[in-house]
């Protein structure tokens, strides 16, 4: 019985891994094929001897000025949006978790409603507004919608974390001589660190992967992020898109997010609060 379960678990795991990683493997393999071998059809899963392009696709992607600008835009916009969103969400969530004020429920439900709004329905109005106030095709023009869509989720996540932290922690800090701000900064924020990083990852994902805002609220490379830029990668022949080049671009644009997730993941140490109070 035990052996059977074990085999089942391994088989299941393999199945899920294949399901999830096959497209990734496919795109990585594609990015190493030469354009010619792709257009000639039936290129096979692994690059053939003749069709192997080496790092060629990558160098041409990275040499592309447009793409480099797009990476720079994406990193900048996503990081700024994440930072601002997390700071605002931390303060807001703390207030929601700790204070009793009129309209608390209203704030929370409104936040949720905003998060449920279909992104597409806002694109038209935002396009008009952004153009008339002059932030169309700028970083800030993307940062604002990213923040407004990620804040609700970040606030909900964080306020749940703050509620988990016993009141006594702040009270102890205050008795020990801390101001409310010091208690918040030195005790509460470190304790809520897993929540803060969770919120940061969620926000970063959203900003990095967004396509709709990226393509509609930008017109030049001055603010266009990677997902939008990739779609402009048409090459010389519009009927024959450079698939292997696109694949290389996709891989390059995935690398930062993998790095960031790995970095943040270390900070999300479960059970950090254990031992604060009697466990």
């Amino acid at each position, binding site marked *: 019985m035990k052996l059977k379960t074990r085999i089942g678990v391994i088989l299941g795991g393999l199945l899920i891994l294949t399901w999830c990683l096959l497209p990734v493997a496919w795109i990585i393999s594609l990015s190493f094929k030469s354009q010619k071998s792709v257009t000639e059809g039936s290129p096979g899963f692994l690059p053939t001897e003749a069709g192997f392009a080496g790092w060629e696709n990558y160098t041409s992607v990275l040499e592309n000025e447009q793409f480099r600008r797009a990476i720079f835009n994406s990193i900048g916009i996503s990081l700024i949006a994440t930072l601002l969103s997390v700071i605002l969400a931390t303060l807001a969530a703390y207030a929601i978790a700790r204070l009793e004020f009129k309209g608390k429920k209203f704030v929370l439900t409104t936040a949720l409603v905003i998060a449920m709004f279909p992104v597409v329905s806002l694109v038209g109005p935002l396009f008009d507004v952004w153009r008339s106030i002059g932030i169309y095709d700028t970083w800030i023009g993307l940062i604002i919608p990213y923040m407004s869509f990620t804040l609700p989720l970040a606030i909900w996540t964080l306020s749940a974390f703050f509620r988990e932290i*016993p009141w*006594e*922690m702040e*009270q*102890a*800090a*205050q*008795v*020990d*001589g*801390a*101001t409310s701000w*010091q208690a918040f900064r030195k*005790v509460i924020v*470190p*304790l809520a*660190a897993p929540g803060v990083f969770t919120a940061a990852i969620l926000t970063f994902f959203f900003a990095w992967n967004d396509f709709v805002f990226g393509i509609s609220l930008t017109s030049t490379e001055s603010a266009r992020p990677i997902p939008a830029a990739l779609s402009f990668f048409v090459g010389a022949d519009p009927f024959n898109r450079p698939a292997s080049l696109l694949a290389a671009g996709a891989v390059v644009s995935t690398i930062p997010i993998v790095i960031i997730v790995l970095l943040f993941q270390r900070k999300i140490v479960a*059970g*950090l*609060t*254990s*031992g*604060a*109070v*009697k*466990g």
Partner: protein
Amino acid sequence: MASITMKNIVKKYGDGFPAVNDVSIEVADGEFIILVGPSGCGKSTLLRMIVGLEDITSGDMLIGDRKVNDLAPRDRNLAMVFQNYALYPHLTVYENIAFPLRLAGAKEDEIDKKVRDASATLELDEHLERKPGNLSGGQRQRVAMGRAIVRDADAFLFDEPLSNLDAKLRGQMRTEIARLQKRLGITTVYVTHDQTEAMTLGDRVAVLKRGLLQQLASPRELYENPGNLFVAGFIGSPPMNFLPAEVSGTTVKLPFGEVELPQEKADKVQDRGLLIAGIRPEHFEDANVMDSGIATAGSTFRATVDVVEWLGNQAFAYIPFEAPPEVRKQLEQLEKDLDGDSLRTQLVVSLDGASKVAEGDEAEIWINSAKMHLFDPETGENLTVDRDHAGEIPGLDNPQDQARAEKMAAEGQE
């Protein structure tokens, strides 16, 4: 170091619940005072008002000569140990203890010296680099104390600090706290619901019920001269026995028979009709195992023993009796106030371990009637209290003020 003065402290919560009603307590410099009472009596609220975590609705709170009503906790210079310790889990033991010093902006070498002193006192030296999550309950408790003693605080406040420990550790830590307090000589206010802690630790004990101060006296005074039924029932384990009694002359009529009362006690309770007599279990004895010399000082009666619990050094015998409705009502209310269940009315008698009384026997029981207290069944007031040895009893010292406070408490409960 400083005294703490509470003057007519009132706490009414936002929803109108009166947690503390007109409590006045003076804690002398260096004194160890205990706030004790059943749950919901306002003892923790009172402590949190001293430290500044709760606003004071009315009344004055003085630390030394300074009125602190409107000061933030950090400006009161008090150290507090919380029930659940409230250690900072992301900091090491060393940093936990150093936390108040760092906030105060002390120099690095001074911090190091003070932290090491504190850790030596509490025998935490080998744990300094560990995180609270890896410590046992007793060690966490000591770290919480370390965080308190490392500062030169004006007073220590303890909020049920031992209730999360197991029984053995609780005993050790209790002694440890007492020793530490004596050595540091620092004013201490200690909240507990455990009467063993109350009796053993405190210089004086304040008994609270529903936000009202019932009596403030030394443990011995509380035990020997309880001011009212509530204090009498709360202090002592097993609790004091309450029996219906009628006094005529120096004779008290109890459900089991008549006993003689000393003249001076009898004088205080003449012509008052039905009373409640309170006698502690140890003031009874099996007449058969006593020296005849002592036995003559009290009276004896015969009763059928229902259950006997023999513990070796002593035995508890249970003797049921019927109480008249007037008394029964008062006793049921008392049980409710004490967080207990209304059980059958029975007499608990502590007998010598040598006693051979068995279940179902009719035993001859001696009663030390000189130790008997008589209570007014209406007000619960102790009519035979020795006022010189009973500390402060607000209900008797200032009956009008206390009546007003009681009204305040009653209004909010409805």
